[in-house]
């Protein structure tokens, strides 16, 4: 195995574990301020985590091992995604490429774990959340794959690091219409996948609207901690991916301390900006009716599809 | 050798006369079985002789080649299935002496038809089958059986009369060629200078006439009535071999006509008749209400397939046609025997009146289903091979379009037959357990033998394959 890659993985995962709760904290804080509230502070997610890990874990009668295993799987898959996606650097293991399809599959593994956790308790809310979650996940997948496919065409590889490296090498390609179409599509998909506005309102417990929160209702203690951390990691990794594709600069091409430091800083910056922007945007958005969500996703799919076909036409002249 | 040739004729005649004269119960009961067994034995022996290279003859009129020997064996085998399987417990109506006499005569007439070298004698024998079976069809004496008998005799005789007209014209053609004859071997071997336009009319009429008897549409109309009204074994005999014997006559006529005219005329006629038969059968099976009529239409279907095989011609198609004759005969006669048992136990042959047979009467339902599977052309039954061969040969001989239509119609027939069969046998009344039956209705052995043979003959190379190939070659003019 490549030692550099190993270092990078450790760094990336560690940085993401630190950063992603902060990211959530920043987003909540921005939102609170813009809504005229004081907010709980940027570190509140960290405090929540610590609190949850200290609390006892309850398990309802009739639930199975899924309640315990699901959170671990979700966290593990999110961590793996963090390890695979080029966030800080682009060095990869020779045998574990950051292949687009592998990343998406690993992500979906977490999605499934979460959905099963939602179903396991047998409450109506859990089922509802799980059902909606899976419906959206199913509809998001074509957009994700096709949009990254569009980005991969100029590179000729489905490896994310190769795509990012190519974009660093040729910055003009970022501003190309193909790239923009694909990025917009991907962003919509990321919003849907991570349960942000306008698909899901992350800060509500109204049964008509909630998706993510409904699934974690029955979890407590460390289970809930893992679930929350896992979800935050996902959010962080996906936003980080968008960041890496949109603004590839700063990403470490090799594993040296300065390069990594720059990479980490760049990542923190990107995440902060994107997160704050997202939070600001959410304030002005109303949540969509659930059955309007497919329209949004269909729209993003069309964008992604256009990106692919356009890229062929562009490539062929 | 001549003894072997004459044996079936003599035995059937003697048994018929004895039965009519003595009317002892034993003779009445077994005359048909005995005749059929004799025919079968003689057929097998003659087949062996033919395979050894012999061409047994008896007088000028009877001559046995591979085709004749094979057909004689088929007549015997199907006859044995029908008569043996049709043995009801003593006291049934089938013990009447008229019945036995006529069955023996019927078998004799069919034997004569396949043994005859002279086309005129062939015709006389085919017409004689009408006479022998007329009262068999009307045997039950009910209004419907009387109606069926009338239609059968009128339509059958008229049709066969047309065939006679054809033969007359053929004879006229030989007269003008200076060699008056109706001998098949002379007609096919001596390359007489026959007038094509005359042979054309003659051949068309002969085929049309024999097609009536073979149940080919549009001359098939008598068939469902007669088959549904005759006693089950007789239906089995008629459907299983009588139709095939008439078809055999068509093959013989074709072998005479084709060398003179080329294959076009016969091909056109037979392909048309074959497709029409399939269409009629398909149309009428879909909403069929009566079991025996359904079986009758299935016979029309298979005759249609045979016609298509004959239209295709060539060794493969003709050998397939003959194998088809054998398989269809055995399966259909078994099925008619079973239908007789169903009538006896259920009191009806209406399809809607028969339900849950497999649960209630497995002894009837299992042979029924096996026979139906054979008729539907499912492996390992020989009809599978013959149908595949007919389609393949059809394409090879340029009848692709016809074959496509044909298999489409066969598919409709398959759906119809399967639906009705499933309705009668499947599902049912779990509360009512199996009823003891089967053996009390008649022997199972002939059904097992017949269906077993149908299953085996397709997958048996060796003498049978040689015989089929030889017989096909006889018709294709290679021998």
């Amino acid at each position: 195995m490549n030692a550099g890659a190993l270092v990078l993985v450790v760094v990336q995962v560690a940085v993401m574990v630190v950063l992603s709760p902060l990211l959530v904290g920043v987003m909540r804080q921005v939102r609170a301020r813009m809504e005229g509230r004081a907010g709980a502070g940027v570190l509140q997610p960290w405090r929540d985590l610590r609190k949850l890990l200290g609390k006892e874990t309850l398990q309802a009668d009739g639930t199975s091992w899924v309640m315990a295993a699901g959170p671990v799987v979700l966290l593990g898959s999110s961590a793996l995604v963090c390890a695979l996606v080029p966030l800080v650097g682009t060095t990869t293991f020779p045998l574990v490429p950051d292949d687009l399809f592998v990343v998406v599959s690993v992500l979906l593994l977490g999605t499934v774990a979460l959905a099963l956790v939602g179903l396991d308790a047998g409450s109506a809310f859990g089922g509802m959340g799980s059902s909606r979650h899976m419906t959206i996940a199913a509809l998001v997948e074509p957009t994700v794959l096709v949009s990254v496919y569009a980005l991969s065409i100029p590179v000729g590889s489905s490896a994310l690091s190769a795509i990012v490296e190519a974009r660093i090498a040729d910055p003009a390609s970022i501003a190309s219409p193909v790239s923009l179409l694909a990025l917009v599509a991907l962003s919509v998909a990321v919003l849907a996948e991570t349960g942000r506005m306008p698909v899901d309102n992350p800060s509500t417990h109204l049964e008509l609207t909630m998706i993510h929160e409904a699934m974690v209702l029955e979890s407590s203690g460390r289970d809930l901690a893992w679930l929350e951390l896992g979800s935050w990691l996902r959010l962080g990794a996906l936003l980080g991916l968008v960041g890496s594709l949109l603004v590839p600069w700063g990403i470490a091409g090799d594993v040296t301390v300065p390069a990594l430091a720059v990479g980490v800083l760049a990542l923190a910056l990107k995440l902060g900006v994107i997160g704050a922007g997202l939070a600001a945007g959410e304030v002005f958005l109303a949540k969509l009716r659930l059955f309007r969500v497919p329209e949004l996703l269909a729209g993003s799919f069309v964008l992604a599809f256009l990106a692919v076909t356009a890229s062929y036409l562009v490539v062929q002249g | 050798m001549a003894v072997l040739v004459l044996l079936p004729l003599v035995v059937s005649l003697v048994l018929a006369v004895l039965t009519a004269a003595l009317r002892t119960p034993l003779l009445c009961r077994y005359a048909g079985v005995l005749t059929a067994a004799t025919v079968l034995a003689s057929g097998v022996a003659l087949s062996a002789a033919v395979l050894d290279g012999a061409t047994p003859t008896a007088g000028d009129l009877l001559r046995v080649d591979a085709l004749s020997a094979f057909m004689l064996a088929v007549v015997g085998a199907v006859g044995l299935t029908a008569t043996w399987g049709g043995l009801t417990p003593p006291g049934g109506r089938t013990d009447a002496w008229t019945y036995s006499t006529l069955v023996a005569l019927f078998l004799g007439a069919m034997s004569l038809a396949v043994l005859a070298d002279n086309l005129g004698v062939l015709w006389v024998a085919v017409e004689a089958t009408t006479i022998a079976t007329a009262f068999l069809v009307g045997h039950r004496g009910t209004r419907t059986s009387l109606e069926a008998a009338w239609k059968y005799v009128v339509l059958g005789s008229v049709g066969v009369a047309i065939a006679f007209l054809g033969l007359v014209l053929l004879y006229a053609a030989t007269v003008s060629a200076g060699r008056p004859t109706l001998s098949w071997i002379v007609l096919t071997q001596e390359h007489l200078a026959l007038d094509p336009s005359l042979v054309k009319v003659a051949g068309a009429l002969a085929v049309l006439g024999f097609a009536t008897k073979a149940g080919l549409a549009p001359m098939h109309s008598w068939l469902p009535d007669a088959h549904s009204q005759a006693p089950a074994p007789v239906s089995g005999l008629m459907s299983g071999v009588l139709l095939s014997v008439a078809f055999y006559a068509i093959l013989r006529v074709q072998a005479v006509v084709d060398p003179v005219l080329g294959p076009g005329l016969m091909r056109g006629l037979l392909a048309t008749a074959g497709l029409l038969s399939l269409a009629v059968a398909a149309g009428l099976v879909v909403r069929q209400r009566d079991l025996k009529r359904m079986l009758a239409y299935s016979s029309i279907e298979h005759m249609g397939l045979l016609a298509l095989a004959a239209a295709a011609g060539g060794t493969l198609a003709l050998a397939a046609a003959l194998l088809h004759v054998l398989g269809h005969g055995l399966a259909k006669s078994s099925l008619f025997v079973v239908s007789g048992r169903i009538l006896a136990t259920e009191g009806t042959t209406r399809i809607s009146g028969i339900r849950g047979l497999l649960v209630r009467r497995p002894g009837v339902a299992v042979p029924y289903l096996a026979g139906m599977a054979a008729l539907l052309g499912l492996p390992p039954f020989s009809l599978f091979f013959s149908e595949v061969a007919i389609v393949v040969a059809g394409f090879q001989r340029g009848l692709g379009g016809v074959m496509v239509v044909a298999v489409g119609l066969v598919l409709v027939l398959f759906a119809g037959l399967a639906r009705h069969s499933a309705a009668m046998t499947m599902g049912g009344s779990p509360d009512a357990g199996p009823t003891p039956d089967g053996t009390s209705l008649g022997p199972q052995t002939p059904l097992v033998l017949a269906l077993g043979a149908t299953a085996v003959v397709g997958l048996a190379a060796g003498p049978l394959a040689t015989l089929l190939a030889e017989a096909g070659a006889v018709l294709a003019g290679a021998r």
Partner: protein
Amino acid sequence: MTPIQAGLLTQLALAALAVVAAVLTPPRLRARVAGAAVVGLGVAGAVTGAWALGGGQGALRIPVSLPFDPVVLSPDRLGGLFMLVAGLVGAVSASYGISYVRGPAASRTSWSAMAVFLLALQLVPAAADAVSFLLCWELMAVSSTVLLLAEHAHRAAVRSAALWYAVMTHLSFVLLLVGFAVLADAGGGTGFAALSTVPAGSAAASLAFALLVLGFASKAGIVPLHVWLPRAHPEAPSHVSAVMSAAMVKMGVYGAVLVTIRLLPGGPAWWGLLLLAFGAVSAVYGILQASVATDLKRMLAYSTSENVGLMFLALGTGLLLRAQGSAGPADAAIAACLLLVVSHAAFKTTLFLGAGSVLHATGERDLDRLGGLGARMPTTSVAFGIGALGAAALPVTSGFVAEWALLQSLIHGANAQDRLVAVVMPVSVAVVALTAGLALLAFVKAYGIAFLARPRSEGAAAAHESAPGMRVALVLAAASVVVLGLAPGPTYTAVAAAAGLPGPQPVGWWGIDLSAVGALLDPVALTVLAVLLVVPVLVVSVRLARRQPRREVDLPWGCGGVRLSPRMQYTATSYAEPLARVFDDALRPERDVLVTHSAESRYLVERVQFQQHVGDIVEETAYRPGIRFVDRLGLLARRLQNGSIHRYLGYSFVALLAVLVVVSL
């Protein structure tokens, strides 16, 4: 005698032995004796198949009484692969069947049919000429129909299912027959060697291709010829469903591969497009139906339709790309097709056997009446879960590897300078992605509703783990899903050999290197990395757990301590309801809301019942009208035989006049 000959003969002998054993042994021993023989038959098939896959040669001649070209069984590498798959699926399913079957499914007929079925399945890929192919094919159809009918006396649906199956399978046969006849005519013989002399560009080849592919598609359950599948699979005994779905349906794929790769290689691009279109439609339609199905086995059946759709899509992609000249991605696509075959065989066997265990334990197939089986049937639950992961194509299962290969070939295929490909490839990617997404939903639903939460019926509450024999088979099948997923390298080598593709490079721990498209996958390495990342979490979890064990509480919280009854849970119907709404136009579900008013007042509602039924829209719009049409023709045709002898004589007379006119013109 070569090993292949010996293997073929052994299979015949074992099948005969199984039939004899089924017929002669008393009911008490029948399952064990006949079942053991059938298992042996499967193993013999697998061994022979493996040998043929390794390049073994040998032929067995079938005697037939008609003067065909030689009718020969002689498996090549491709056939060997399918024989291997069929044999393994058959052996596992039969061993499961030994403990599973009861009642009519354990009858003499059923065991005999099982033996014949498996034999035919294993011999279809061995056929080396059209006649033996059709023979084995029909034998397979007949015996499976008999198996399907096992419980005809108990459920009315069995009969209609069998009828649909029989007719559709016969349709398939007829199409194949005509297709082969066309080829045999053009190639001058029925042997595959003669058939393959037909140039792929000729009209005859194209006609034959269309007919054969339609015939194979019908057997493979490709939309719109799939209608038998969602009926037959649920009604057959589960171990039979497993063989039907995991092995028999594959024979349709085998046929398609046989025709396009072996008999008529180098076909034009539209062949590929046709297959691709069929595959895409089936994949999406199948998985949509599976997502909204509530009958567990029906859902699995539709999922089969989806998976076969993906196989056709992969094959079509391969052909299309070959025709357009990009060989590398084309090879990857064809390999992906065969990987899908192997993978689907593994996980679908698991799933159907798992469904069988559920049915066995609860008497229920309706997901809306299951629940909470995870605690009651742990082994089944885990095995089914693994199967579901495989079906959802998640890592690290066989399904993931296959879909990964397919997607790789799709996104790299479009490098060809061709606008057609440029449009087709993204659509295919989208189709595969949507399919994968919906499969995820479908299998989360199936697993979550059936095995998690609380039982929704008494049958489910009283469930028990199944017999050891069944569990062993289930675990074997599930293990194969994981093993194939973890170590795809050898499988890839095998399928590449079977399809005659260039040998792949071994990489890492039994990984795949698709060097032609510059992608590699080593699931073991991925797993190791994942484990490394999860270990800290586990360590923390375990330490926390030691300090503060999990506490069992009586009730879920349920947003405020409402006393939850199992009836308040989401059901399979409600789970898929949002999706059904999204795809309203494609599925056209019938929804009924039954409102029961209380006796006192119309303004008071006593009960509201919501029912949703999703029929098969293809069946409703394409088949029903056809059936009605034929039926009406049947009614009309009756007038032909109205009993009047004059009319009958008239037919003859008209025929006579027509013939006279024709011959004298």
